[in-house]
Every structure is written in structure tokens, then in C-alpha cells.
């Protein structure tokens, strides 16, 4: 029996292990290879050392992504909280409404935002004003928040709605007002949802290149734009090096976040 069991586990997992090694690990090794070779295929550190030139772009991307993520959390947490507290039927409808825009392609959504916010766009022509929004960092942050907000709300909502009803009552029973309940009990208990929400918003925000192209007006570049430009101009080695560094940074930060949230299951506020 024991033998059979161990056999089954490998038969089941085998296609996936094969797939993962071939199509996840191997491509990353190739990226690693490109990052450490020059255009002629010789081993070289030049790509990695040249990355210091891109530090400001990295910095800007990170900053914008952090702000966008914070705004998403700030807007998304109450949203998730209110949805989770609504009646079951209302909850269903609200989640549906939240997901619906995702069925419009991200590119179209972003383009539509641009068409609305542009200097001569729908908003300005409607109000007869001339707000300059597209082309600012604020517009890029808005685009990120708009496009990725559901990624923040969904995990938090799932987390909050899974919290036992007794927890809310126990908190009230022990003297927490609704606000204190939220701060002292619900917020710490939804930490895992927050962590996954933050991850799901931060990662695409750092690496986006479409949003910054459309809403940033081209006056600045994000790291995604840089990789895309390297790819287009055929400078694959540098592109690979940037990707590699970005990947490592992101994996490390995700690791730290998970570690932090796992430790005794949350934070005390």
C-alpha cells in the first residue's frame, strides 16, 4: 500500500514536474545565460554592471508601484470590507460588478482612460476645461490603480468573508466598537489577504509598460518600458539582465512579506 501511494503521487505529479522543469526552470536558466553573456555569446559581467545606469528607472518604477499599491490598499480595503459585510446576495452582485470590467482587455481599458483624461479628451471637452492629467505621474498611478484594483479587493474580500462570524461577535462582546473590531481583530485576521493583494498589485505595477506609455505621455520611462525597448532594439542581453534583477528583487520581497505575515499569523495593532 505504501509503495502504491508513493507511486501514485509521482504518476500524478509527473506531467507537471516535467512541464515545470522544461517550461519554467529552463527558460529562466536561459535568461540567466543571456544576462551573463555579451552579444557574441561570451561570458561577461558587463550587462550586470551596466545595470547601475538603470537604477533611477528602477527607483522610479518602484516608487510609482509602491504608491499605486498603497492607494489600491487604501481604497480597496474598505471596499472589500463593505462588500464582505453586505447581504450574501448583494455580495454576489458586487463581486460580479467588480470582475466585469476585467473582461474588457487591459489595453482597451487603459486606452479608454487616456481618451477620457487627455487634454482634449472626453472629460475636458465635456466640462470645457483644460486639465492636464495624461502625461503626469499621477495619471500613471491612476491607471495602475484602476487596472489592478480588483486584484487587491478580491483576496481581501475572500479573507474577510471567511472570518468566522463568531470572531466579530466575540470582539463586540469583549468591548470592541465596530471600528475597534476592524482594527484589532478583522484587520490582523485579513493580513494574508492583504499580503496576497499587495503582491498581486505590486508585481504588475512594477513591470507594466503599457500603462506608462499611454498615460505617462512618454516623458519618462518605467523598467517595463526599458525591457520592452531592449527587446525591440534587439539588445536581448541587457534586457535579460534587467529582467533577472527585477525577478530576484520581486521574489525576495515576496519572500520577506510572506515570512513576516507567517510569523505568529499577523501583526498586533
Amino acid at each position: 500500500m505504501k509503495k502504491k501511494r508513493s507511486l501514485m503521487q509521482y504518476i500524478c505529479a509527473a506531467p507537471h514536474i516535467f512541464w515545470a522543469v522544461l517550461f519554467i526552470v529552463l527558460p529562466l536558466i536561459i535568461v540567466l545565460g543571456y544576462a551573463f553573456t555579451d552579444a557574441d555569446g561570451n561570458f561577461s559581467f558587463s550587462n550586470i554592471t551596466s545595470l547601475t545606469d538603470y537604477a533611477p528607472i528602477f527607483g522610479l518604477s518602484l516608487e510609482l508601484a509602491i504608491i499605486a499599491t498603497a492607494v489600491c490598499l487604501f481604497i480597496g480595503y474598505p471596499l472589500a470590507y463593505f462588500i464582505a459585510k453586505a447581504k450574501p446576495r448583494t455580495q454576489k452582485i458586487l463581486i460580479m460588478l467588480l470582475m466585469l470590467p476585467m473582461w474588457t482587455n487591459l489595453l482597451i481599458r487603459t486606452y479608454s482612460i487616456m481618451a477620457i483624461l487627455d487634454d482634449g479628451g472626453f472629460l475636458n471637452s465635456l466640462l470645457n476645461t483644460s486639465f492636464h492629467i495624461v502625461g503626469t505621474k499621477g495619471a500613471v498611478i491612476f491607471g495602475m490603480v484602476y487596472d489592478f484594483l480588483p486584484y487587491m479587493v478580491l483576496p481581501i474580500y475572500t479573507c474577510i468573508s471567511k472570518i468566522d462570524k463568531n470572531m466579530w461577535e466575540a470582539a463586540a462582546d469583549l468591548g470592541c466598537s465596530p471600528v475597534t473590531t476592524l482594527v484589532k481583530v478583522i484587520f490582523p485576521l485579513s493580513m494574508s489577504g492583504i499580503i496576497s493583494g499587495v503582491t498581486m498589485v505590486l508585481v504588475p505595477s512594477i513591470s507594466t509598460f503599457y500603462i506608462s506609455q499611454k498615460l505617462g505621455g512618454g516623458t519618462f520611462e518605467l523598467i517595463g518600458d526599458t525591457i520592452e525597448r531592449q527587446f525591440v532594439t534587439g539588445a536581448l542581453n541587457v534586457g535579460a539582465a534587467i529582467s533577472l534583477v527585477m525577478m530576484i528583487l520581486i521574489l525576495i520581497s515576496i519572500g520577506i512579506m510572506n515570512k513576516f505575515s507567517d510569523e505568529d499569523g499577523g501583526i498586533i495593532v
Partner: protein
Amino acid sequence: MKYASRIYLCLIFGILYIPIVTLMLFSFNAENSTAEFTGFSLKWYLELFNSPETFTALRNTLILAVLSALLATVIGTLAAEGIYRMKNKLVKSAITSVTNIPMMNPDIVTGMSMMLFFAAVMGILALVIPNISYNDIGFAAMLIAHTTFCLPYVILSVLPRLTELGDTMSEAALDLGCTPLQAFIKVKLPNIMPAVLSGMVMAFTLSLDDFVISYFVGPSNFQTLPLLIYSMTKKKVTPDMYALSTIIIVTVFILLIISNFKSDKPEANTRKKKIASIVSLAVAAVLIVAIIIGSFFGGSVVDEEGNVTAAKDVIVLNVYNWGEYISDGFDGSLDVNKAFTEYFNKHLSAKYGGKKVEINYTTYATNEDMYSKLSNSAVKYDIVIPSDYMIEKMIAEDMLLAFDAKSLPNYDNILDEFKGSYYDENDMYSVPYTYGMVGIIYNKTMVDKEDLGSWDLLWNDKYAGKILQFNNPRDAFATAMYLDGLDVNSKDPEVWNRALELLMIQKPYLQGYVNDEIFNKMTTESAAIAPYFVGDFLIMADQEENLGFYFPEEGVNYFVDAMCIPKNAEHPEIAKEYINFMLSEEPAVANAEYIGYASPNKLVIENEEYIEYMTDYAYEGENGETAYDLLYSNNPAVVNKAYNEKIGSDNAACYRNFTPEIQSRVNTLWENLKLADATELWVHITAITIVVAVVALAVYSVYIKKKRSRFYRYRDRENRKAKANTNS
């Protein structure tokens, strides 16, 4: 509290839906504008249904999404079972971590790694099968890539359900005489089915929406909807994409409503709900199948007698062109590609063994996009239409076929001055398609007349915030170089540094660096001044009467786009037939009218209908010139006379191919330009505040925790010590 939450929900959902509602509104717009609603019309829906390109892309997207979702579901469900059974913690965590990589990794990195991987695969395959092209494995590559990034989501959905279910059920099944396989299929699977299905739906939607990974991996013969949209938005989104989005969102909305349909009586609930969800699933499935079958049927070649030609007798001609660079049958114009297929199938088919032809038409936004597609991913195209300097580069790199353009019967239609150009002196590789010059577009109501005439308008601080600049290094640097009389093909780094200085001076006055967004920004009067191509200007002028145009006196870029055949083309003979067809009067005129660029074709310039069309065009210059005058009276040699003399060459204003050193130099300078004052102070401050706040919160929380627990942690430690002592 109740009101606060309602107001908040309304507010956020309102903002969330404004862009969606707006795009729905504009899908009914009478004009080709996404900013000004001029009237209700269904023409974009008609346009959408008449666009085979869109339908093929939609079909491709759906096929890919269905297949990759299925594949990911099967592999992922099995994997979840395998991972669940694993007892070795180390192996287990190793596998789950690797699985999660595509989910955690930015799409762009996954895409890049996939692209490099498939390039390597191509390298190996080419050793075995000499004539293989990327298109042959392109679909497989897309399927693999999509399945790979969908897999973790399926596993993530199924695994918790398996853990929740536990072993008792399958043990009961084994006890009752099932084999392990039967136990899995008959007992476990039905119980984890909801999780499997939700994983599959998630995979389906992810694949449907993916752009980034497809962008890196996608072959030329398999364009998905997001890729199509991307190539469009690089130029200008026409409301037909809005129409498509509207259809999709309304369909999904209706499906969701059906599946959430709930009767008021609770006892009838489960049954009705079940029926409703089955109905909605069935409707969705039928829709998908209908679209796939329908577009297959639409895509196969049907001749006039209605005989369907089997796929093996169909030659697929891969045409790779600029976006919006061919007459496509819109608004009653000639559909040139369709005309060629009909012409070929009627008159030329016999010459090629009775085979029919079908055109696979894809588009690019820049010469560099096209070049990288062609050189990196081993994609095979039969026709490409690069610009002059790119042709020079490709010839130098032996990427183009020397098919001897002079030998084409219709080559004589080309005007003499476009023969034997510097980039292809013997007319071996290319046939001119269009030509044009860059000039400055300005808004007559916003710019004073006395400021016109020179490139320095782009540096005029009077119009700060209303000026646009090219968002590619070559064209942007050129504007500065013409202004200052510098050689746009200079190999001297100092010259480029000087140009950079000028661009740095200009940057604060700019509204943005843009490419094709210029269309939108100029026609909606978002900006007042922009350098752009004269042909594109005419399209804008048609939509916005306040726009004017001039060629700056210092000299301007002059370019030729020409049809070429890549060396690895699969059907060079048919490609030649295609090029020859494009030179004949009817398609050439249709193209010239549609594109708006100047034509190097005698038959076009002398065509009465064309002259009339161009003369009546909705444009009038400051001195009463017509569109025709604007296009054809401003001979590049005359416009650039001063500049050419200054630099000392006949084609000084034309771009020449860069050496790699200069290319990388220009790239670096361009990055410097983009980086200059890139980050505003508030961005720094806000980001740092957030980081500091989060860290402070974390530290505070840890500190409080430690402080509060100090006394018993101390005791715990003592206990442990005591225990250790007694043990030893």
C-alpha cells in the same frame, strides 16, 4: 455607517465604470473619434463584423484560451493530487515554489524567458529540420506559454479543496472495492469538481486577457485579440474595438445574470440555480464554438461559385505591414488584399498548380518592431514594407531577397526619381510603396501665424505644455539636428551630445513624447504643435479643420517605404505577384487615397479620380494649397536644398543606417533624456512616507509584541534551559 458604506461603494464603482460606460458610448459614435461624441450610429459594429482580421484574432484568442485552459486544468488537477499526496516536505515545497514562479514573476519576465527559450528551441530544431520557421511551432509555443502561466492558478484553486476533503472519502472508496484510479475518478474528482471548474474558468480568462506574454512569444501567423488591439492602440483605436469590447462585456454580463438567476422561493432554489448555471455554461460553450466554427468558415477560401478549397491547396501569404497602411475596404474603399486574392485565384491560380491564395495580414508599429520580429524569432514573412534606412540595414545583413524589382511587369509605373535610390541602387530588393516628409502640424487657432516656418516652433516656450515630440530616438533627435543644421547621420558623438542638449532644453515645454497618439491629441486639440508625417497630417485634417501644416525651412526628414521580400520567405514568387499587383492602377490609387501618403506611382499621380479626390480634400493651406499640392509640389530636393548643401550630400536629410556604436550611443542619450528630472519630489516623498510607515508599523508591532510578552518569554527560556540541563 450604513450610508457611508453605500456612498463609498457607489463612488468607487462609479469611477470603475466610467471608462467602461464611455467606451460603450463611443462604440456608437458616428465619427471616428474616441473623444467627441458626434452622433449615434451602428457603423462600428458593421465595420467590426466586416473585419476578417478581428474575427480571426477573436477565433485565435478563443481557441488558445479553451485549449490552454483545458490543458492547464488536466495537468494542474493531476499535479494538485500528486502534490497533496507528497509526504516529503522538501520536495513538496520545492515543487510548489517552482509552480508559483510564473504567478509571482512579472509577465514581462515570463514573456522574455519564454521568448528566449523558444528561440533556443528553434535553433535546435533548425539543425534537424532545415526549413522550419517559427510559424510552424508558433501556435504550440503560444499554447505552451499560456498553459504555463495558467497552471499555478489551477493548482492553487484545486489544492486547498483536496486538503479540505482529506483522505477519508477516497479511503472509503478503496474500502468499497475501487482501484486507486477509480477512487480518484469516481469519488474524489466529483467532490473537487467546483474547484477544478473555477480553476479552469480562471485559466480561461487569464489566457483571454493576456497581452504581455503573447507579445513576446506570438508568431506572425497567430494574432490574438490583445495583440491586435496593441498594434491598433499604437496608432489610434478606432471605435470598432470599443464595439467589440462592448459586445464582450454585455455577453459576459448576460451570462453572469443567467448563472446568478435566483428564484425567490428558497425550496426551488437549488434546482433552478443548477438549471441556470447549466444554461449559462451551455450558452457560453455554444457561443465559443459558434465563433470558432463561424470564423473558420469565414476564413476558408470561397470562390465565386461557392466551392470551398481544401486547406492543403491554399497558399498562405504572410504580409507584414505598418498599421493602417493598406486600403482595407473601410467606408466603401477597395479591400486591396481581398482584391488580390480574388485576382490571383481567378487569373493566376492556374500558373501555380491550381492553388488558391489566402493572405495572413499582420501589422507592426515601428521599423524596429518589424526588424526584431524578423531577426529574433525566426518568423517567416513573404512581404515586409520597411523604410529606406532599414532596407539598407537589412540588405547589409543579408535579410532581404534580391528578386530584381526591375523585372516586375508593372515596375515601369514607378516614377524615375524613385528608381535607383541610395538604399537600393540597382533596384534589386525593393519597390517603393509610399514616400513622405516630416513637417510640423499646428493648430491654427492656438498658434500665432508669425511663429510658423521653422523647427524652432517646437522650442517656443509660448506654447509650453502644448507641444508634442516623437517618442523614438531617431525622429526626436532629428528635429533638434535639423534645427541646428547638424548631420542626422553623424558618427561624431559630440554632434549627438549637442542634439541632446537641445532636447533637454525642449523637454520642459513638452506635453509628452508620443508616437501615434499624435492623431488623438491633435484632433482633439489636446496639443497645439507636433512634428509628424504629411500623409498622417491629411488624415488628421479630415477630422479637425483647425489643423495646419508646414515643412520647416531648415530641412526635413524624407523617407521612402518600400515593399521587400525577406530572404526566408516561403512563397517569393507569389510575393512578387503581390507586389506587382500593388503597382497596378486600381489598388495603388485605393491605397494612396486610404493611407494619405504620397505615391511614387505614375498611374496614381495622373489618375483623374485621385487628383479630384486630393483636390477636394478637406484641407486648405494658408495660401490656398490643396492636399494634392501639399503632397506633390513640395519636392524633397527643393525643401531640403539648404540642408543638403550645408551637410554636403544629396540625401543628407534621409536617415542612414546607424553603426552599432552610434546606435547604442543614441540609446544611452535617449535614456538620459527620459531620466532627466524624471521623478518629481512628491513621488519621492509619498513613496518614502509609505515605506517608512509600513516599516514603522512592522517594527512597532514586533516591539509591542516583544514588550508585552517579555515576562513569560523569559520564563519559557528558563524552562527550556532547565529542561536541557536535566536532559544532559
